[in-house]
């Protein structure tokens, strides 16, 4: 909107190359099973696949019918089956069943499994145990990185969070290293790598190893610096309700792979429509990073401008009208469509949020962050849990806040224990297992308060915060809180390392690093440009609010941030991944 953009901000690298690489490799792999074949695709690979190839591409390479993997007996009549899946035991088990059923039926087919982004030994071992190793050929589709937008790249691996942080399984560490390696070989060489967290450190090491294994071509770097961060360094930020437009849309409608489905309520028609949300959408691009309170004003201004543009027609002669129709009308119509969509979405979100006392929820969250009126906050949350106007996820939020040290000021809470045992465990009796266990594996020492003071995360509440002219990253939470993750990034870049942040890293459990990866002596201008492009990799997911905050930081400092994340997350997704309630 009205942000002053520093003119010297460098251009972002072109990430469409990543899509092309992935598409070419997929075609190559499909050709490894010559002839007509049916393709079974893992449900959560469908959207990523959609972003890089279409059905025609697949058909051109002899794919006959397409099916979604549904873990049920299949109906295909093709004598060649290809499975495009994530390396998951459950899916491989299903394939084993399919193959063995064919065998029992005396039916001969050829099978191929393409694992994305890589295969696991455990999967191959299952094929062996089920007696079909050899009947089935396997391949790897190294589709590590999906560019969701000009500055967002996702690994689309939401299970990364659960596998690593809850189960303690390091199966994706090398994957993260390989993703980094891919970026390094296409857009590097990186000159400086910073990071914090155990997983970051391991991913960094894995990447270094892969660099040493392969050969490095000398090329001009497009990305100079890298920052790796573990999600568990900052779990508070993703648990906060989002109030920046894009984050709010994600919280309410759930953006999936850069695409959102707006319900009839939004489209004010009888059907819902799917909309791509990225910088190509000119209206969205201008409001995505704005605090929600600013969006209405912007949209109505935009609507007035549009009206004026349409009104120009009235005084036109035929010739002018002709030019207008051929040159402007299409653009105006497009803008009109987008505008009405986002106005519809805003209205719908307003309605939903008013209904659930959003204002009070925010007030409570902010008080918790400030460590203020904790008792009132607790009774507020308790009541909402009692009324069940909150879902189980909010209950967990509560318990999590306690473990994170946000609620330490409360005397060892009888309220909490009673509530947890009564509600937490019985509200959803499907929630088997000890939730608290899951949390204690996440919990850090109660350091949030001290960190907040040291890093000035919570601005003084008595000052007015003008959301129209944000003065710092706190604007993404209405001026109440600067996200810890982004603050760390800002501080480390400013200091070019961790010097002076010793106390902070100690409270965050250490594992911080800053390594000069050795840069080549390319010409000075290019070098400085790439130095101001910073790739931030979130291991375990990041939120749209954090991305907005980094975009803000970039504008302030004349930097460009590229966010690489294992998946886009938010409070609901984070907590759902902790619920282990599937049989």
């Amino acid at each position: 909107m009205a942000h002053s953009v520093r003119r010297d901000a460098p251009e972002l690298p072109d990430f469409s190359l990543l899509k092309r690489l992935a598409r070419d490799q997929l075609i190559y792999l499909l050709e490894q099973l010559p002839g007509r074949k049916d393709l079974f695709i893992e449900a959560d690979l469908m959207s990523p696949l959609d972003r890089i190839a279409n059905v025609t591409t697949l058909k051109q390479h002899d794919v006959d019918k397409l099916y979604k993997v549904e873990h049920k007996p299949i109906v295909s009549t093709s004598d060649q089956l290809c499975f495009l899946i994530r390396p998951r035991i459950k899916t491989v088990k299903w394939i084993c069943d399919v193959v063995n059923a064919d065998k029992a039926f005396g039916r001969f087919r050829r099978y191929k499994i393409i694992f994305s982004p890589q295969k696991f030994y455990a999967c191959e071992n299952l094929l062996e145990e089920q007696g079909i190793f050899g009947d089935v050929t396997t391949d790897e589709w190294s589709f590590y990185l999906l560019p969701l937008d000009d500055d967002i790249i996702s690994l689309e691996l939401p299970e990364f969070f659960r596998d690593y942080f809850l189960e303690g399984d390091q199966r994706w560490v090398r994957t993260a290293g390989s993703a980094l390696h891919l970026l390094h070989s296409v857009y590097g060489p990186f000159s400086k790598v910073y990071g914090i967290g155990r997983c970051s450190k391991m991913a960094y090491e894995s990447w270094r190893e892969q660099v040493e294994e392969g050969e490095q071509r000398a090329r001009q770097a497009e990305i100079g610096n890298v920052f790796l961060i573990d999600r568990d360094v900052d779990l508070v930020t993703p648990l906060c309700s989002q109030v920046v437009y894009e984050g709010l849309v994600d919280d309410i409608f759930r953006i999936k792979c850069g695409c959102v489905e707006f319900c009839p309520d939004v489209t004010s028609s009888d059907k819902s429509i799917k909309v791509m949300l990225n910088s190509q959408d000119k209206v969205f691009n201008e409001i995505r990073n704005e605090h929600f309170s600013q969006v209405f004003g912007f949209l109505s201004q935009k609507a007035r401008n549009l009206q004026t543009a349409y009104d120009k027609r009235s005084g036109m002669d035929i010739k002018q009208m002709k030019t207008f129709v051929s040159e402007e009308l299409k653009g105006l119509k497009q803008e009109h469509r987008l505008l009405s969509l986002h106005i519809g979405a805003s209205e719908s979100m307003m309605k939903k949020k008013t209904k659930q006392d959003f204002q009070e929820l925010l007030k409570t969250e902010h008080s918790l962050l400030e460590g203020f009126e904790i008792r009132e906050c607790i009774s507020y949350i308790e009541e909402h849990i009692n009324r069940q106007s909150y879902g189980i996820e909010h209950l967990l939020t509560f318990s999590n806040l306690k473990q994170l040290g946000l609620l330490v000021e409360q005397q060892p809470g009888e309220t909490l224990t009673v509530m947890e045992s009564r509600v937490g465990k019985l509200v959803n009796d499907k929630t088997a297992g000890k939730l608290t266990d899951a949390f204690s594996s996440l919990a850090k020492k109660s350091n949030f308060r001290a960190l907040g003071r040291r890093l000035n995360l919570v601005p003084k509440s008595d000052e007015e915060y003008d959301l129209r002219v944000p003065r710092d990253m706190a604007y993404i939470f209405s001026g109440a809180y600067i996200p810890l993750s982004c603050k760390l990034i800002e501080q480390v870049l400013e200091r070019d390392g961790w010097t002076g942040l010793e106390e902070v890293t100690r409270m965050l459990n250490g594992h911080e690093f800053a390594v000069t990866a050795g840069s080549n002596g390319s010409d000075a201008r290019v070098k400085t440009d790439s130095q101001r492009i910073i790739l931030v990799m979130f291991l375990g997911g990041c939120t749209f609010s954090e991305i907005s905050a980094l975009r803000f930081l970039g504008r302030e400092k004349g930097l460009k941030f590229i966010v690489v994340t294992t998946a886009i997350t938010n409070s609901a997704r984070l907590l759902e991944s902790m619920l282990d309630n599937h049989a």
Partner: protein
Amino acid sequence: MIRGKPDEDDYWNSSKFKAFTFDDEDDDFTRLKESKRAVNSIRSLVEEEDEEDDVEKVSWSGEPVGRKAKTGSFQSFSESFGDPSIRNYAPELRKPKSEYKDYVSDWTPEETVKRMQQGKVYSLEKFRSLQDKLLLLDEAVNAHDGNVITAVLIYLKKSLSKEILFRELITREIALRHYIHYLKEIGEQKLLVELFKSMDRTEDMALMQYRDHLNVRDENKKRDFLKNCLSFPFSPDDATHVQDHYTLLERQIIIEANDKQVESSGQADIFKKYPRKASILNMPIITTLYYSCFYHYGESDGTFSSPANIRKTFRISDKQFLLTCLGARAKLKAWFDVDALFTTKNWLGYTKKRSPIGFHRIVDILQKNNAPVQVLQDYVNLVEDVEQKISLAQKYKCHDVIINTYRDLKDRQQLIVYRGKVERGSSEYRKIEEILSNSQLRWKN
């Protein structure tokens, strides 16, 4: 498939293959063609290192081998190297089979792990002594690659007795967590239970077994399953929880059977007026209480389905009970019941309205259940904080409350302002007029 092939560098640099390298220079692909038959005869030996025999067969179609690279994308550079034919062409120069095996197995734990990470051929069979197996495991853990850690664990699972493996895992936390996750994923419940047991993690064991109730569909079987769980060594907290879970399901089964019958027989009005949308089985406790307040209000404490009995059995707090009950009765527009929820009598027999929750919240809930203004205003009136009271009254258009409050505050100015907001000639307008013209009142402004 390319990853499945042995690393060329290792081949050419290894001293054992010196003779091989030497001869390489004399050879070319033409000779290869001639010895095709001989090569085919040793395919069984080669297959161990090549997963992809289909492709091989294709490439053996008699065409020059180099042609195959034409399909290659960025992977293709390794194809010309990796093509198995290059190293298989001279059977007479190959080491005897036994020696070849030796060679494959000569990698150190470190090399083996590295090869596994890179997807190259490896062999774990040579790691036979316990010490070697553990060295390999520790090396995998040091490499931070979960995929390899699990692969090694699968090998150890096959080649060590579980007692020994469990014992060694106790001191290896990272490997242990991978093992537990692996067993969970492949669904080896029994082994997992044994693992927990051997490590004295009996609570984990109990929870693991309890978790299996998710797989039981039939409600009676599930109830029996839960009953069986009661004897497991849970922590005290969990034990209470499981007991509650069992009691709840047992009760839901009884209620469901009864209500289903009553509903279909058409005996009770309440079911006719508000047909049940779903069965109560497996619903959470609060939903069950709500259901009970909705369909079984006023039943005596003795019946399983009565709100009072559920409240007592599951030790539901006052606040929680009130909120749930309020929601249910308000939904039915049973305003008398709502009223009764808050009415208490003191020892002199006076009645007074009390609530464990602020009345402003009660107003909120009632309003969401479409309570009429006459009902709402009673509760708005009970809000203690005057400002809050007025703002709520304004929000819900409880004119009487506002007017009376301003009158009690003797705030003539506000009353005049408010007169401007109501409809001229309406009853509230007349009421304001009446008060303003009352000469008895002493206004503060």
